[in-house]
């Protein structure tokens, strides 16, 4: 949609002002995220650019907020909890979700619509409502596990948060894996069976490698859901299950400390890495299924 050579002055003005408007909107989208990054290297405890920073004086920059993040026990506990909870929740949602997605993609599934609605519901229901419901039910569940099964209080706390996060990640796994299975050629499994492979061998040697990109990107969605989740963990967890977003939330609500900006920068870098991975996987999946990349 380049500008034709015969365009009138009005058209030229509109063409360029439209580009400027779009540029401003893109600026609005990206600026807040970009601004956080240099500010995290601030040598002062301010949330704005100091004169030293604007002069690009090395004195104005420092890594002290990053040092604080890696040495402060509160932040380290939060990081450790996030790294325990998110992978466990992801494993549960990916393993159960992939199996169910394969079941759902078969040709004759009774009550398919109802089942799909139930499995997708954790994504539809607003988090605050899921959190409220889980708050009531998981407290009883936790008491039961402690009293009847005699489990340790801290362990039960982790179980509750992992279960809650796993169920929140399931819709993403279901959606991505069923989307991948739409293009899956069923005759491949029949061919494998013809050549004497059992259902388990067929699954791991034929079907799994082909749907793996979808499974991984579903897993990444589930991981980021858990890693980024704060409402449910606030309601279901206790202080010893404090995750990274929880710690950030406390910091933002009470007294905002510049360490948050360092954490934010690290998280942005992680999300760029994840975004790249998902995009590469999508292209690979399309190439494998014989569609053109794009």
């Amino acid at each position, binding site marked *: 949609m380049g500008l034709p050579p015969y365009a009138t002055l009005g058209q030229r003005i509109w063409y360029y002002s439209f580009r400027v408007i779009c540029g401003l909107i893109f600026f609005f989208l990206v600026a807040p995220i970009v601004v956080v990054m240099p500010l995290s290297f601030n040598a002062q405890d301010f*949330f704005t650019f100091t004169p030293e920073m604007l002069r690009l004086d090395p004195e104005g920059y420092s890594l002290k907020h990053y040092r604080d993040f890696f040495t402060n026990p509160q932040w380290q506990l939060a990081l450790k909890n996030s790294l325990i909870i998110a992978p466990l929740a992801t494993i549960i949602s990916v393993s159960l979700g992939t199996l169910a997605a394969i*079941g*759902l993609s078969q040709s004759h599934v009774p009550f398919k619509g109802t089942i799909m609605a*139930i499995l997708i519901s954790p994504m539809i229901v607003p988090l605050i409502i899921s959190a409220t*419901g889980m708050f009531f039910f998981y407290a009883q569940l936790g008491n039961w596990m402690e009293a009847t099964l005699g489990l340790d209080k801290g362990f039960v706390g982790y179980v509750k948060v992992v279960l809650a996060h796993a169920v929140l990640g399931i819709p993403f796994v279901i959606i991505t894996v069923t989307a991948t299975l739409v293009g899956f050629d069923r005759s491949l499994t029949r061919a494998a069976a013809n050549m004497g492979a059992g259902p388990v061998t067929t699954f791991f040697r034929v079907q799994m490698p082909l749907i793996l990109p979808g499974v991984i990107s579903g897993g990444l969605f589930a991981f980021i859901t858990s890693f980024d989740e704060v409402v449910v963990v606030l309601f279901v967890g206790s202080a010893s299950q404090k995750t990274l977003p929880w710690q950030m939330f406390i910091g933002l609500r009470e007294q905002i400390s510049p360490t948050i900006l360092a954490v934010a920068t690290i998280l942005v870098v992680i999300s760029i890495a994840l975004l790249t991975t998902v995009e590469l996987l999508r292209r690979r999946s399309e190439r494998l299924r014989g569609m053109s990349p794009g």
Partner: protein
Amino acid sequence: MAETMLAADGTPLKRSLARALRRQKLRALGLIAPLLIFVLITFIVPIASMLFRSVENQIVGDTLPMTVEALADWDPNAGTPPSEDVYEAMYFDMFLAAEAKRHTRLGTRLNYEQTGVSSLFRQSGRALDDIGKETQKPLEKLDGAWKDGETWHGIFNATNDADTDLLDQQRKRVAALTGSSASGEVNFAPDAALSNLLPRTTRAYTAWAVYTATQQGRDPATRDPWEAVATALALDLKTADLSGYTGPAADLLTEAQTADLPVPAMAGAFEDMDEDWAGATVWKTIQTHSSTYTSGYFLNAVDAQKTPDGVAWQPEEKQILLTLFGRTIWMSLLITFSCIALGYPIAWLLANLPMRQANLLLILVLLPFWTSLLVRTSAWKVMLQQQGVINDVLVWVGLVGDGDRLIMINNQFGTIVAMTHILLPFMILPMYSVMQTIPPSYLRAAKSLGATNWTAFWRVYFPQSVPGIGAGSILVFILAIGYYITPEIVGGTKGVFISNRIAYHISSSLNWGLAAALGTILLAAVLVLYWAYDKIVGIDNVKLG
């Protein structure tokens, strides 16, 4: 007649096919079943428990079972306080509840309906012991044996027939009151003959024995019962006919009866504790809210309340929730419109640029989409603060004086800006996918037929992009009305949503019934919107990234 077709193994083909189909269905269900059960237990049941909480009201009947029963006959509109029976039932109910430290919970519950009940219950729970002491002391003075737990146990423990119904009833009562099991060994069974002769005392002693044994793990045979049992004995002895009684400690009981122990007038005693008990208001509140299920929380959620005279509005100063619902909807609409206004040009640009450039620009849209919500919210806090980046730039440029920096955070403006930014990708992506399908030749055709740029856009392009706007709008609106984190951080007091109120009732005011009712209303709204979304767009068309 045509011969039935046979499969290779000789069974009719029809049956063979049906069997294969059934096996296939079972296999599919078998693969789905683990996840379905997992989601049902970890998600659907919790949501159902929230729905149940919003109407559940067993606490009144569990804490004051006899009072609720006695109050059923009382006419609240007569303007007189209830009869002595009700006060007596209240005394025994409240005594047990106070021992179990459960009366304050009921006080808090009823305080949602009638301010002041909470402190009334707390005070009365403390003062209740004094009523019983008035009879317990003279009784123990009469004969030292009454101080001995074994005397009481000897009298009331079953010698021949045990009244097992009474024991089960009291077990249930204690279990409902404390919310824990009361099924352990008690080492006591009420005597059936005494249960007829001294009904109040046997009941009070059984309740005490069950509580002592199952909740405190002590042996009732060796311990002195609490004051309420002595009060019950004094009440029973006023009317009981002991002439035919030959059981254990008959002489002790006869001696106590002839001594004519002082019996507290319950109505008067309650009035002495607090004069509110003599009025009808507290009793009306208890009676109105004594049903097991209540619509009270839902009425509270829409600023109304259940009163003895029917449904009425809350007092003016307590009416905040309807305003909050209105504000939630209004601000979500504003956010949706801001998203349409900002998202439409971007989607149009992306759809009309060559693929390579569009993909590059799409990354700028996806980056915020993938960035942590907390990161984006903290970024806006940094940007919008009075000492923040935007104000600094404005001061530096000279648009704003250093003294009067703009207040852009902790108000509605802050919430709307931050949430528009957070939800904008959810608007752009559906719009983009719809606009990609509109052939650019349509616009050129319109122009070559003489339409101006504006007419071509408005009459030809825009109507075809409406499905994208619809899909994006519903999605953004649904996400917006349930938001909690961002309004909590940048919204201050004026920019918060109904979800912040739910969180407040869960974690601060502990009015869980109201939180559940608010959540149920919000859930219903969201489900209706999703139903509309499914009709217009189809849930299957939800795409990620």
